[in-house]
């Protein structure tokens, strides 16, 4: 039930994000319809550095009564349409799974690039982009309680003390992400962004007599499947290196 609500909440967050972002994109397009000049292309164009944070993680962690989770994001424009991009995050989440309740705590770093596919009019700086990341996470999973599989329920099968209620430390995960997203300049130098991520797990250290059901940054790991998904919803500030015309 709680899991279902969590999913529902994520879905709502998404719909809201989408509606909001696209409204802003279209309203800006209308505003500048008359302007028909385009930016000139240059090969190297180190123009701006954007730094910001993800809004969804603090919301999720506070509504779940977890310790604060956060993600700091940044990207550096290197050519007209190419950006170096990175995210650093710290997650502490209590997960109530089918049979096992556990805490997943760890940090992750994602590094890669974004390629803007959106042609801006002069003076505008929105983007619809695709990107790639290489990501790595160092984390621990602490088993809090679990229900032992048994066809007999005469005795309680809940285990909340001792046995496998242990902390699996020093775990690592490495994966790649295919990113797609939008960034919209809502106020001067302030951008709202949303990105969706398809993750492919490359390797992870398996704890003994348990499994990595969740990896901070990668999110849910499913049985017999190395694919995962994620999203973020960012607010970034752009530090311009050159004055915009």
């Amino acid at each position, binding site marked *: 039930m709680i899991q279902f609500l969590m999913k529902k909440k994520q879905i709502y967050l998404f719909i809201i994000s989408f509606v909001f972002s696209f409204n802003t994109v279209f309203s800006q397009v209308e505003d500048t319809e008359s302007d028909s000049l385009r930016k000139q292309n240059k090969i190297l164009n180190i123009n701006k550095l954007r730094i910001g944070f993800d809004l969804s993680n603090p919301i999720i962690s506070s509504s779940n009564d977890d310790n604060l989770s956060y993600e700091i994001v940044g990207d550096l424009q290197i050519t007209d349409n190419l950006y170096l991009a990175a995210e650093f995050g710290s997650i502490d989440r209590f997960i109530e799974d*089918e049979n096992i309740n556990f805490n997943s705590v760890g940090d992750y770093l994602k590094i890669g690039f974004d390629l803007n596919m959106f042609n801006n009019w002069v003076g505008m700086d929105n983007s619809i982009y695709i990107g790639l990341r290489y990501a790595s996470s160092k984390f621990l999973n602490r088993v809090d309680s679990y229900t*032992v599989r048994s066809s007999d329920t005469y005795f309680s099968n*809940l285990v*909340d003390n*001792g046995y496998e209620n242990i902390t699996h430390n020093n775990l690592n995960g490495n994966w790649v992400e295919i990113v797609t997203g939008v960034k919209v300049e809502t106020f001067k130098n302030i951008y709202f962004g949303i990105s969706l991520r398809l993750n492919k797990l490359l390797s992870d250290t398996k704890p003994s007599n348990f499994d990595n059901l969740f990896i901070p940054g990668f999110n849910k790991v499913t049985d017999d499947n190395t694919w995962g998904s994620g999203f973020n919803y960012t607010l970034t500030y752009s530090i311009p290196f050159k004055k915009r015309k």
Partner: protein
Amino acid sequence: MLTITIGCEKDDICIEGSENTNRITIGFIDYENKNEIGISLNSIKGVGLDSIIEGFSGNNLKLPLMVNSNRTQYIFEHNETLDTVNIHHKTIHKYLNRSCGFISNFIIKSDTEISKNHGWIREVSILNDSIFNEEKTNILIHY
């Protein structure tokens, strides 16, 4: 897109036929001649629980052990007398996967014994101490 991804997640249902927690198998033998004989129990009750397992009649009694303890105690009623058997066991939990979680295996310890109440049970002996399946008889109750 996320909605679709969530919708396509593998069902979190433990496949039927996956390993499961096994029960202890108890056999009954005649104390005098050590021949296997059937028994008729009026009731079986786990110590600490209010609910009673229905009566039993036959040769091999299969009962669950406590997965969150190293001791399971059962009170057996036979011919209107009660006797308590203390089964001491090592409880080992084994992880299967996300959808099935953990199962429990047990190893019966040698200090498994009867608490003499009225004494219809004369002796308890261990035949196969490890419970990894339900095919073998684990302990014998002599009466």
